[in-house]
């Protein structure tokens, strides 16, 4: 097991936070349209878990996908350009916020029909096993990590995915980001089994982890990924809390400002910063320096998006099929 570079993780988490804050600003300025689901408060889950993956591993995620993309190492510029609806975006401006993807990084995309992508992730895992066992491709030892929220665990696709993953002993980690709300509906209102990992327990081993602690998240993700690679599916329930609205346009009638403030003590970036300072790995000054550097990088990222051209109108008619008719 490689030693976790907590300082690098801290920097990535700050990058994600800053990216999201810039998204909010640009959304307010109407440079970004549609739905914008920010990852603020959940950064440790993506950074901790995705850091456990190797290059040959695969990632499938939900519509709140900015943090996962950045944690997987996608460049911020084409991501911001995608949000601006520009031709330099990851999806050439055709997908938007909910559909970031990068095939070269086995980042199979963000999906926006809640729960459905668990089945695609299961299918990708099936294909890995098929390639290894039927096509004889011995180098196919990748694992699929599939992110979803607590709200995704009530529909039928969830149970179909975990049941079939177990049936075929697939190399997949199901990772539930339990942020306590399905959009605006509280956990206790939307589900009968609030300890989400227990929903998968008839099918596979799993556990609940502190998703706001990047160190714990990484350690348990490494265990889960290793289990998936060698034995079969594994389930992680990462406890976290979304500090922003469901989307940038959410008035948050389902909770009070006090509710949110009470949870700021669990802010994963603040927690990690304190830990690093306590361990003499970081000073306040250095932390400010990181903030400054990231801020500067984001200015360049926003500028890149602003200056990128909108897609040519002819692009509306391309890529409907992969082989044009």
């Amino acid at each position, binding site marked *: 097991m490689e030693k976790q570079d907590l300082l690098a993780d801290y920097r990535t988490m700050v990058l994600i936070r800053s990216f999201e804050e810039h998204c909010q600003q640009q959304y307010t300025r109407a440079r970004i349209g549609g739905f914008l689901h920010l990852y603020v408060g959940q950064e440790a889950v993506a950074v901790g878990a995705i850091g456990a993956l190797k290059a040959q591993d*695969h990632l499938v995620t939900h519509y709140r996908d900015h943090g996962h993309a950045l944690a997987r190492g996608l460049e911020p510029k084409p991501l911001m350009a995608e949000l601006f609806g520009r031709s330099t*975006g*990851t*999806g*050439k*401006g*055709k*997908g938007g916020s909910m*559909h970031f*993807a*990068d*095939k070269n990084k086995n980042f*199979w*995309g963000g*999906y926006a*029909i809640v729960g*459905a*992508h*668990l*089945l*695609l*992730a*299961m*299918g*990708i*895992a*099936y*294909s*890995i096993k*098929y*390639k290894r*066992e*039927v*096509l004889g491709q011995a180098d196919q030892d990748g694992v699929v990590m599939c992110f979803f929220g607590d709200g995704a665990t009530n529909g*039928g*696709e969830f149970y*179909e*995915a975990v*049941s*079939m993953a177990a*049936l075929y002993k697939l190399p997949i980690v199901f990772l539930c980001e339990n942020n306590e709300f399905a959009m605006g509906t509280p956990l206790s209102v939307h589900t009968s089994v609030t300890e989400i990992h227990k929903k998968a327990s008839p099918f596979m081993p799993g556990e609940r982890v502190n998703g706001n602690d990047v160190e714990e998240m990484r350690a348990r993700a490494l265990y889960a990924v290793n289990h998936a690679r060698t034995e079969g599916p594994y389930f992680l329930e990462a406890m976290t809390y979304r500090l922003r609205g469901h989307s940038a346009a959410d008035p948050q009638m389902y909770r009070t400002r006090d509710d949110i403030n009470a949870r700021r003590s669990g802010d994963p970036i603040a927690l990690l910063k304190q830990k690093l300072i306590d361990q003499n790995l970081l000073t306040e000054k250095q932390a400010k320096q990181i903030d400054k550097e990231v801020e500067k990088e984001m200015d360049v990222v926003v500028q890149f998006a602003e200056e990128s051209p909108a897609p040519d109108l002819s692009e509306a008619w*391309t*890529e*409907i*099929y*992969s*082989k044009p*008719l």
Partner: protein
Amino acid sequence: MPVITYSEALRQALREAMTNDPRVFIIGEDVVHYDSAYGVTKGFEKEFGPERIKDMPIAEAGYAGLGIGAAMNGLRPIVEMMTTNFAILALDMIINHAAKLHYMFGGQFTCPIVFRMPNGYGQLSATHSQAFDNYYAYMPGLKVVVPGTPYDAKGLMKAAIEDPDPVIFIEHTGIYNIKGEVPEESYTVPIGKSNLLRDGKDVTIVGYGRMIPYCQQAVETLASEGIDAALVDLRTIRPLDMEPVLESFRKTNRAVIATEEWTSVGVGSEIAARLYTEGFDHLDAPIWRVGFDEVPMPYAKNLEAHVVPNADSVIQAVKNVLAGKTQKIRQQ
């Protein structure tokens, strides 16, 4: 040339693809232990082994998603939905995922997958006797083929499996046993090409799938009565190839559209609309459409027979068109 059934023609295409390409595999309900609900892939497990054809749980979205994920990652799955009635449980997978992946990720992912699903009826009542051709034909990003002859069944299946994009392959339990000439050698029928099956000067009949054998019967009967009907088989309902239809229509100036579906808002509605818009100058009489009566399918044998189209429905519609009558679509 050998004369074989529609079912055997499909089987030949599937076997050929399975033999030539190990990335091709079949998943579906009851394809192994039950040995294939309609017998198309009977015995395939013995021939190709348990990894190449696999029984799936009755979880249509689940195994549709399995297929889509596997297709994205380079395999060539053939997903057998036992019937179109069950396939609607997987509509989200097909509509929101298979059809959209390539476009919404800016061309990064492809989804070379074939969904096989038969329409059909036979005293199975309301939920087991439906047609959803229009659901799929409505959707940009999908290709939808509906062969009506054994020759096209084999050629279109080969084309569907080789196609790099998602193909909905609609079969019909009522014609699995019809026979026709089918070459033994490998060939494909291009997706997106309609086919003029018979030229004629009095009326153009447009159909596809299960209605083709009925239309062929109708055309023969009409010929014996001195009515010279042309017949165009659409074969593919997305992308739609209207040119052979319009070419015939420009000669006959009259049309009957025969589709086995509820008439309102169906594939036939689109064909009629295209004829009215693109063929307006050539129109000499109201177009007639043949389809299911617009009721949920009843169980009783006489009721069922009363509400489904057949060769006689086509013949009657042709006569109505030639008489210049106007069709009223009844919804209740």
